[in-house]
């Protein structure tokens, strides 16, 4: 009996402490505007750990939190002078916010996933219910309209047949950048 209980405890410990297969939270918080005043968003823009490190050191020199406008300007200058191509390229992936409109929407009426792409991109949209269960996954190829072309995109949501009423969470994934929104379908 003791061995069995030890096995159960061991099993639970391994289960709970094993590394999760979820998308890093920094990806969900990724901002797309390089003019953002938030240091955490600047980190996300720069993407990988290698580019994160010098930014942190540099920003520490200015005082990591509560820097003034002058410091912010210096930081902006730093980004652009260090890796201008990367910055320009990533800021063009998704410009501005990812929204669902109209929301709340009455079931049976059409609503849209709305976002603006800097250039043609492969896009995926994941939709979860309020319990976090995956409801739908959409893949839109680069250049396909609506959804994968440069410019403002409005991807329709068929609320009549695809969804029951409720609260949903949508994630827009474009080239490693992830944006999140939530929307409601009302009866």
């Amino acid at each position, binding site marked *: 009996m003791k061995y069995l209980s030890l096995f159960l405890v061991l099993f*639970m410990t391994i289960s*709970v402490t094993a590394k999760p297969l*979820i998308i890093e939270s920094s990806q969900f918080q990724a901002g797309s505007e390089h003019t953002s005043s938030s240091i955490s968003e600047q980190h996300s823009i720069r993407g990988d750990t290698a580019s994160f490190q010098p930014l942190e050191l540099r920003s520490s020199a200015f005082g990591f939190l509560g820097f003034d406008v002058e410091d912010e300007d210096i930081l902006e200058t730093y980004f652009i002078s260090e890796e201008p191509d990367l910055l320009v390229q990533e800021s063009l992936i998704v410009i501005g916010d990812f929204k669902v409109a109209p929301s709340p929407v009455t079931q049976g009426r059409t609503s849209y996933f709305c976002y603006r792409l800097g250039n043609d991109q492969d896009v995926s949209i994941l939709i979860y219910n309020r319990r976090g269960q995956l409801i739908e996954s959409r893949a839109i190829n680069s250049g396909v309209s609506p959804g994968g072309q440069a410019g403002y995109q409005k991807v329709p949501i068929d609320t009549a047949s695809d969804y029951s009423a409720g609260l949903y969470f949508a994630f827009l994934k474009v080239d490693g950048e992830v944006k999140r929104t939530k929307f409601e379908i009302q009866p």
Partner: protein
Amino acid sequence: MIYKNALFLLVIILAFPLFGADYYIDDIYNAEEIGRGNVEGFSTSSQGIWSNPASLKNVKNISVGLYSAKFMDSDVNYNNYTASFKLKSFKIGVGYYDVRSSDIEKNSLDDSGEAITDSSYSLSSSITKIAIQKPMKEWGSVGAALSRYKYSGYNLTGKGYGLDLGGILSIPIKKRIETISISTTFKNIIPQKVDYSNGSSEKIPSSLVLSGSVHFLQEFEAYIQRSIHFKKAQLSGVGLSYRPRFIPGRAMSFSLGRNTYFNQNDASEIHSVFSTGVGLHLLGFEFHFAYQNDPNSYSEKQFYYTSVINF
């Protein structure tokens, strides 16, 4: 007698009207049950009113319970509160279950067809339940629970009612297998709907949940469950719990389980979930922690907590 009851049950299952069900109800309320495959009907506290009101038979005198879970990076909060107490020949249970989310954008399309945010709002949906349980001799228990559903969102409110009926049959054997128990619950047995302030309505889903448990070797309990969701799908659950005697006061319990659920919008899409749980039982206080692993979810690792005081 048992055969007659089984036949009666079968007739009810076959005769039960099939109808569409749209109102979304989460079927998870209790960490104790989640840890053993979400098998319902054998809770030892007032939390049992969410699954089978007849399970209040396991409560001694008074029981107070709290449950909490968070989803989508704490964007959606689930809480429920239950209490039950014993009267002369029956027990009464009450419960309140609440799901909330805030900072939901109210969006519209402007003249150029682009999305703009007008404001933000919060929504909540709740279930208030009152249950009654009566023992049937030494081996049985029956219970009924009345549910009130309430929704509140942007410019919309809704409410509806439902009735659950449940029964538990416990057969003592007193050999290596001490007890076999069977739990049956009809959820929303009389087809009801939630009516909204905009004139629309949604049917409340009905289901039949059949569960069994076998208590053996004094320390183990095995569970199995089959639930039928009308016009939706059939789901299953299995679990095992272990409450060792070598721990003083048998103060801890451990459980394992596996159960299935269907996609909210596509009942033919069934997913499996593995779970484990641990319980702490001290002087009438119970704390249950459950962990679920669901690869199909936003957060693969999900945690649930239930605290209960029984006395």
